[in-house]
């Protein structure tokens, strides 16, 4: 019994680390840049395939890939915002029209990226084995790669939090999230910061993809599920709250592992239930206002 509880708790944390990471990423894109990026999961998928390819064809260590994947995704996200979303922002004149149009555009992006991935890598499921040896944690056995995933998810999130809390640029991002016009009056280049936030979101997704690929199978259609989870976590944690997204990720991970211990097929259903209840009871989320 005790071992079962430890098992559920640890699996919840392990999944929660990934959820936290992808939710923090979406939080940057939606909370600051105001793009509800429904193709968020596609960036996770890209990160996963990128890592798989480098491992399979070039024998590059996935943990090393983190250092390559992060900046590449950051750049892709940044350029995407500077081109696509910026022109949508200009043509829709900001505000609610921009939120609607940019979401539609990211739907388009979802299909484009997914089909590109199918063309490049094929539709079949892929995987590789890295650090797959078992580790005994108080009687519960986990593959080492799951623990490494959790460790890196926490390191990345904490580093990111410190970046936002302590650095000049991090403060500019927070200011822009709270009041973009006032941030502009302080000397913050808003266009640059919004693009950077979108890029940082893509970077988080890419890093999550790299970590996921170490312990899960990858395929071109894997993204959507993660996008939905990220949206749920962002709402759960409170829109625009980075610590909220981080904590919310772990909460959702734990709920998922408790529910799947009872009935594995019900975990997604449980997420939606939670989402609906939340929207009815506390739409601002746990740390939102």
């Amino acid at each position, binding site marked *: 019994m005790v071992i079962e509880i430890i098992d559920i708790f640890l699996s919840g944390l392990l999944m929660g680390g990934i959820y936290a990471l992808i939710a923090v990423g979406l939080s940057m894109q939606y909370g600051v840049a105001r793009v509800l990026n429904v193709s968020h999961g596609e960036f996770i998928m890209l990160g996963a395939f990128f890592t798989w390819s480098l491992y399979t064809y070039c024998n590059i260590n996935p943990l090393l890939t983190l250092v390559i994947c992060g900046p590449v995704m950051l750049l892709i996200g940044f350029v995407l915002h500077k081109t696509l979303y910026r022109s949508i922002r200009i043509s829709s004149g900001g505000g609610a029209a921009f939120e609607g149009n940019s979401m539609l555009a990211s739907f388009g992006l979802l299909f484009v990226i997914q089909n590109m991935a199918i063309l490049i890598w094929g539709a079949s499921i892929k995987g590789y084995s890295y650090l797959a040896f078992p580790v005994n944690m108080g009687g519960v056995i986990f593959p080492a790669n799951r623990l490494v995933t959790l460790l890196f998810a926490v390191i990345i999130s904490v580093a990111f939090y410190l970046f936002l809390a302590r650095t000049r640029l991090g403060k500019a991002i927070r200011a822009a999230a709270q009041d973009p016009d006032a941030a502009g009056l302080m*000397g913050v280049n808003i266009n640059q910061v919004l693009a950077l936030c979108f890029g940082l979101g893509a970077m988080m997704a890419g890093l999550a993809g790299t970590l996921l690929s170490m312990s899960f199978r990858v395929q071109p259609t894997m993204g959507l599920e993660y996008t939905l989870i990220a949206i749920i976590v962002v709402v759960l944690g409170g829109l625009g709250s980075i610590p909220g997204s981080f904590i919310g990720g772990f909460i959702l991970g734990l709920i998922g592992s408790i529910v799947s211990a009872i009935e594995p097929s019900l975990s997604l259903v449980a997420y939606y239930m939670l989402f609906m209840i939340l929207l009815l009871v506390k739409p601002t989320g746990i740390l939102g206002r």
Partner: protein
Amino acid sequence: MLELNNINAFYGKVQSLWDLSLKVEEAEIVALVGANGAGKTTLLNTICGLMSPASGSVSFLGRRIDGLTPHSIVEMGLSHIPESGRVFPDMTVRENLEMGAYPYHAWKMKEETLKQVFQIFPRLEEREGQLARTLSGGEKQMLAMGRGLMSRPRLCMFDEPSYGLAPKLVLEVFRIVNSLREHGITVLLVEQNVRHTLEIADRAYVLENGRMVLEGSGAELLQSDYVKKAYLGL
């Protein structure tokens, strides 16, 4: 120092500023007064880059700034303290002030500037670690003013800094604005508190329905029948 020539500005199809011209010389305090909806905020927003004029020119220190973005205008030394302060609610008082020093030239000197700002607003130093959302209305306004000074501006624009404050604080705000002269800061002040404003202003403009109707020294306008009747209730 600041010069506006024949500015016309619109909200959509509605014209809100009509052929406005205005001048602020170095080391002056210039006031802009007018009733609600006259276009005072619109004018300041057009100067600081939040809006761009449909026609006409704005120059600062001899350079055209109309069409530039707000961040490049503040980097040139023109600081705008917007209507109702607009402090960052989820940042502490200190973080708000640091944001004011965001331009590189100011960031390098931010500890030094912070000391000076704390001298002007001792209250902010006491509340350094407090979240801005929990400040009182008066404290928020002080924070907005302090934050606006953190960029070490040559010219400061204030949009109704005394709005909603208790009489004692109103006097304090005017005293502080007046004291900026000693720091070599030029001021463009928008206010509804016409008497106090004209008392400290070197020159003033009166704006009505988006048009400039009167211009003169503070003392002249205080004496003018028009201002007495329309704004001082005499």
